[in-house]
């Protein structure tokens, strides 16, 4: 029995807890992509770099607050800087919409033109981020590091295996719940949210019923910027901030949005967790886990790892291809295809 508990503790520590945190981050990122897709009808390739831009502003404000001695006690100072990050990020995406996307919207351009324009925006955002903060790793986490330490857990339960929950992981999950609840309340209960959903369902009908498209688009961009900044900051707190990593996050985020059904917010959240759990369960080495469950004399021949962690992007890619092959609309029906 104890072996089973130990095995489960081991699995929680290395698979379940990290996957929940990573899944929350992907879900927030995918929500941004899916909202932009639902309203503006294109896949925003600049989303990863929007995340890094927002996070960069948060980091700069965090450093400033830290230098002034302002902090939140056990919580990371970055939370205090988050509103500023969201503000600057929102201003940036609204400007990019004003000077780039609005022109193509007025012309009712082909979606692929938006795609190319978003690549241009991606270049510029990436350049700005590298120009201001540089291409290297930045660490900006402070406050308490753990909610439960491995040692405390072992003393509490008397097991051999400890479970560590980092503060950033707990914070990520709680923030995700709060943000998603607020977003769904907004989309389902408020006038602006309802007009957004109407616009997403049927653009012409929405315009006929007097919905102001400029307002809908602006709100979408602000929400997308907020989601991107929050997702980016949480990812940066949990791991670390590096501009290129955020560009690479684009693939799992898109995979999450497509798996869930592009344009469907609920699907984006489900997709985020599907991608995160598959990525981590497939790249985890089960050697010790299996050893707990097997009789003493049995010894594992290798690491029992399905795929090396270097190929974690391959996991999101393969899931993406499988979904496109089997259910091109995604798990939940999206507006795509």
């Amino acid at each position, binding site marked *: 029995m104890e072996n089973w508990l130990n095995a489960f503790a081991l699995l929680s520590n290395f698979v379940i807890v990290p996957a929940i945190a990573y899944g929350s981050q992907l879900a927030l990122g995918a929500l941004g992509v899916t909202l932009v897709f639902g309203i503006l009808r294109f896949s925003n390739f600049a989303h990863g770099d929007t995340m890094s831009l927002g996070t960069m502003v948060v980091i700069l404000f965090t450093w400033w607050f830290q230098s002034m001695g302002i902090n939140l006690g056990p919580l990371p100072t970055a939370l205090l800087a988050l509103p500023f990050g969201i503000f600057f990020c929102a201003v940036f995406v609204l400007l990019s919409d004003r000077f780039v996307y609005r022109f193509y919207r007025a012309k009712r351009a082909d979606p*692929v033109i938006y795609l190319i324009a978003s690549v241009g925006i991606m*270049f510029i955002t990436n350049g700005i981020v590298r120009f201001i903060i*540089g291409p290297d790793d930045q660490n900006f986490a402070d406050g308490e590091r753990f909610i439960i330490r491995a040692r405390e857990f072992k003393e509490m339960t008397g097991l051999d295996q400890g479970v560590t929950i980092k503060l950033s992981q707990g914070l990520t999950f709680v923030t995700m719940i709060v943000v998603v609840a607020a977003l769904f309340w907004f989309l389902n209960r408020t006038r602006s949210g309802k007009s957004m959903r109407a616009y997403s369902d049927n653009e012409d009908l929405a315009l006929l019923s007097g919905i102001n498209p400029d307002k809908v688009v602006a709100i979408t961009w602000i929400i997308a910027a907020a989601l991107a900044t929050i997702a980016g900051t949480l990812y940066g707190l949990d791991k670390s901030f590096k501009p290129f990593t955020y560009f690479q996050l684009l693939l799992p985020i898109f995979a999450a949005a497509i798996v869930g059904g592009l344009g469907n917010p609920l699907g984006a959240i489900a997709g985020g967790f599907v991608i995160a759990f598959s990525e981590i369960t497939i790249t985890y080495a089960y050697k010790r886990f299996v050893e707990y469950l097997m009789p003493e004399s049995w010894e594992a021949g290798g690491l029992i790892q399905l795929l090396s962690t270097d190929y974690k992007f391959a996991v999101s890619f393969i899931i993406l291809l499988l979904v496109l092959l089997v259910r091109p609309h995604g798990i939940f029906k999206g507006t795509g295809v």
Partner: protein
Amino acid sequence: MSGALRNISYFVVMTALIVVVGQLQSWNLALSILNLCIISAIMALGVNIQWGYAGLFNVGVMGFAALGGLAAMLISVPPVQEAWAVGGTGVLLGFVTAIVTIAAAVFTFRSLARGTLRTLAIIVVCTLGYAITRSVFDPATDAIESVNPASTGYLGGFGLPILLSWPVGGIFAGCAAWVVGKITLGLRTDYLAIATLGISEIIVAMLKNEDWMTRGVKNVVGLPRPVPFEINLQQSQWFLDLCAKLGTAPVTFSSIFVKLCYAGLFTVVLLVVLYLSEKALRSPWGRMMRAIRDNEVSSNAMGKNIKARHLQVFILGSVVVGIAGAMLTTLDGQLTPASYQPLRFTFLIWVMVIVGGSGNNWGAVLGGFVIWYFWIQAEPLGIWLMNLITANMDAGSALRAHLLDSAQHMRLMTMGLILLLTLRFSPRGLIPEGSAKR
């Protein structure tokens, strides 16, 4: 007439720009820019075949170029006999079991009716096949990687002339394009874009991590060359005679001579690809492709198989990119997987195509030349600009040091800006599609 004159003048100006570099900086630099310009132009031609002819958005140029690079290495490097002895059969057996697994999965898919049973059967077949493949493959690769890891630790290649790798690189890229295209074409354009982004990341991850094949980040250096080595030239009598006749120093002239040889080879490929592309564009096939691009519904009504044509053109474009990738690795003389960066290999090529003129082959070539030239020259230009801006600042100021440090990142911003401005104000590019006589 004026259109043709303008187009010719673009190329004249471009030539003049390279000559200016040769006169002001050095001929060595001018020729290395020229060589990379030609390779970029070929890659841009490949992307133009996909985007300009058919409107397909491929964000995985890097991956196809990297496959070309892999081919260059695999074809040219001599085989490592020891590694083949310890792990060759294991690796080959691993490939066989992998292929058998895929065949078995496809067979199960075809022979059973749709339902839970089929899904379960496929999962069982795949898991079993994967386990068997790994159990054959892993010991073999471990054995290979432990053979003298400091200098080899990989299987090596076939020891054939490196020029052969150019078409092989094209074939590799074409096979990868077939897999991606088969699955994602026929769906929204966004899906193709994301899938190509994914496959390119995976191909590069494979090059970086499969040490038994590519030595990973340890790189394979000293690939055989299709042209003579500088040192051999400097020792051969005919070359010294030539230098004496031209009145140049043998050391500088030997490296210029080598670069000229490369430029000659690359120009032949460029001209062949350009000729074939132009022929294809003006043929009934090219008109059909443009018809499909401009109106899928009506071409479908005319009986054209849109998905099959898209797959065809997607593979053709990727083949051209693969050839260019192999040429690039040949020029570098080494396979360095870490050097494949998406911003440099994928998005820069896109800027070339958009700026040059999508749908026009001459435009793609011109775009390749112009953008590569500015990509190279933007760095000194950026540093010069930053020096100018910071000239009045305190020499020890942190801001000045930061600005000077970051000048290199200005290139990204400039490229993004060029892309957006072209797309907005001159979406047809420098040499628009319709300008040439059809």
